[in-house]
Every structure is written in C-alpha cells, then in structure tokens.
C-alpha cells in the first residue's frame, strides 16, 4: 500500500496526544449496586493527512489506521480488566476544521473491527452488534457524545448510553481526534424495560 510518496504509511496519521479515561459510577441518587459501572474511553489526536484539500481516494487510508485501532482497543480492554469484562461499546471522531466529516468516516472499519477483534473469543461471545458511532467537525476542546450499545445485541435497552469525550488541546485544524469507548455494564439504575442482556438469543447482533 506504500504509494511512493516518500512518507511511510505509519507516518501519515502521526500520534500527537493520547488520553485514557476511566469513570467508575457508584450510584446516581438511587440504591448503589454491589459493583459500580465503569465507562472507559481512549482517544488519539493524530495528524489528518487529508486536511486542507479535497482528496477523492481516501479509502485506502483505513488500512493505515488499523494499528491505531488496535492500540486504543487494547488500552481499553486492559483498563477494564479483560475482554470478558466489556459489555458495551461505541466509537467516534472529531475532525479538525481543515478536514472533512468524511475523514472521520475512515474510522468506522479500523476502529470498530479493532474493538471486535479485541473482544471476541469462545468465552466472551462474538461482539456481534454493530458499533454505534458519532462524528463531527470541531476545534480544540470540542466534546463528542459517543453512543454506547451492548456488544452482542443492539436492542438491549439497559446498555443504551453515551460517553462524553474530548481533549482540551485538540483537534487542531489539521488533526483528527479518534475515540473508542467501552463499558462494563448497564446504566447504573437501568429500569425502563426492553430487551435484557440475559435474554439475548438470536446471535444476529440485534436481539
């Protein structure tokens, strides 16, 4: 995939900043469950090689983002204590102002499949659900609400959530912020019915 630009492919999305956040939620005014809910996110602020001009053929760059996807996914799995701890996930991107929303769409495949690869095993399931996502253009300090759903079945109502991610100093105009989110349980006081995690049966990623 090296296209002879004089720049190795690893260098095009240069890592500037990395942030890992883990939030433990004990209660929200109601009875505290025995184990707190944990929500973790990992973000990388990287150079956007397509900033400042229109490039038609950007899809090959998805391949270049795979190592970053693996890096962030493994940080989150480690933060939560292993693949069997992870129940929900999501992903997102904030594209600096000299870029295009479409540049953030490059993250869908390398970000999503990196998480699924890091999570799936015989013991823990297949991470069958589509990874929900959000993306937008923004400046330094912009926050993004990254949606979260259950990793095995999108309709599990107790796991619908969102995690607010952001970094004070990024993305600069020629950068992108790429984020992955993992959680280890339902909302802390989930009680609005719908499909429950114990009822997942179809293996289709939905129910």
């Amino acid at each position: 995939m090296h296209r002879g630009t004089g720049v190795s492919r690893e260098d095009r999305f240069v890592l500037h900043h990395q942030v890992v956040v883990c939030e433990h939620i004990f209660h929200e005014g109601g009875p505290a469950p025995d184990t707190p809910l944990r929500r973790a996110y990992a973000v990388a602020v990287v150079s956007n090689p397509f900033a400042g001009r229109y490039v038609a053929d950007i899809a090959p760059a998805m391949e270049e983002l795979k190592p970053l996807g693996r890096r962030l996914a493994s940080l989150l799995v480690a933060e939560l204590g292993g693949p069997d701890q992870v129940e929900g996930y999501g992903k997102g991107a904030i594209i600096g102002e000299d870029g295009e929303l479409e540049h953030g769409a490059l993250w869908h495949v390398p970000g999503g499949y990196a998480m699924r690869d890091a999570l799936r095993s015989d013991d823990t399931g297949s991470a069958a659900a589509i990874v929900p996502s959000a993306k937008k253009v923004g400046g330094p300090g912009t926050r993004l609400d990254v949606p979260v759903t259950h990793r095995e079945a999108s309709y599990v109502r107790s796991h619908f959530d969102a995690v607010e991610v952001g970094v004070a100093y990024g993305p600069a105009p020629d950068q992108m912020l790429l984020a992955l989110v993992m959680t280890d349980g339902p909302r802390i006081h989930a009680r609005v019915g719908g499909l429950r995690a114990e009822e997942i049966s179809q293996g289709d990623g939905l129910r």
Partner: protein
Amino acid sequence: MSSTPTYRKVMTRVEETHREGGRGVDPPTRKAVAAAVIDNPFAGTYTEDLSPLFDLGEQLGADLGARAVAALGINPEQVQSYGKAVMVGSDGELEHAAAILHPKLGRGLRGATGGGKALIPSSKKMGGPGQVLDVPLGHKDAAYVRSHFDAVEIWVNDAPRRGELLVAVAVTDSGRPLPRVGGLTTSEMTGEDGLR
C-alpha cells in the same frame, strides 16, 4: 487505599503528549488526574464549623493521589509535579472547596506521592455539571521549577450537581513537553525548602 463509599463517581484521566510544535516528545510527557464526585454535606446551609470537610479532604488526598499514581503506573517517588482543585455545585459555597483543599488534603496527597516539599498549587470555583475545572500543576519539591508550571483539565459530564463537590488531584511524571523559558531547572533545584 482508603475506601470512600460516599463517592457517586470517580474518574481517572491519563494524558500523554507524543508530539508538540512539530517535534516528537520522547518519552511522552504524562499527566494523570483522579477526580471524585461526593455529596456536599453543607449544601443549602450556612455552617460555621466546616471541620468535617478537613478530614474528608485528607482521605480524598490519599485516595485520589493513589489512584492518579496508579493510573500512571509509577512509584510514588517518581511523581514530579502535583496539584489539586475543587468545583462546588451551586447549592454550596466557595468556602466548602477551601475546607476540602487547604487544611488537610495535602497530608493525604503527599503520602501518596512520596512526599513533596512544595506548596500544592490549587484552584477552586463554583460550577455545574460538565463544567471544566483547571487543575494547576507545580513541581512537588521546588515550587520555582519553571519547566513544571502547567495545568490539566478535568470535567465530568453530570457533575457537580447542585448538592455535590467535584474534587480533583493531578500528578505527573514529567514537565511541559518542550520547556524553554528558562528559570530554575530540575537539575539546579535543591528541593529542601519547597521553593528552590
């Protein structure tokens, strides 16, 4: 680690800078913040004696300090700079932040960071859910070390609610990414009086 069952939330945040000003930063500079959301027992009241918050501050300094050091994966002695801050929800009073921060929090935090001769820089404000709190940073043994003057942001999307306090402690294992404005350096400091 002293357990503090009154937390509603606790968050750790680790930030690394790998590149700055077009240059690589090797090793990356790293900061960690640990922040807890707790009930403000004096929200909605005027209370003369705030001493219960002094002891709470000490526990928070120890627990949040230990969490921040653990988040960096370092030994306490490797901490280079530290800081502390509180945001008070709108039914509280700025003085509640002062009561958490100033009388005893430092004792707890220094216990978690291998000591520290320097004043722990601090900030405080009133605010609402999702508002940003900037935690100032300074070298833990010599407050005049210029390369380590810095700050780090923390925010929690749903805190502080009106009757809550957001308490944050920050530690680093490094200074700014590319320090070059002179002043006292880590190699020149003696670290005995907390200043130089």
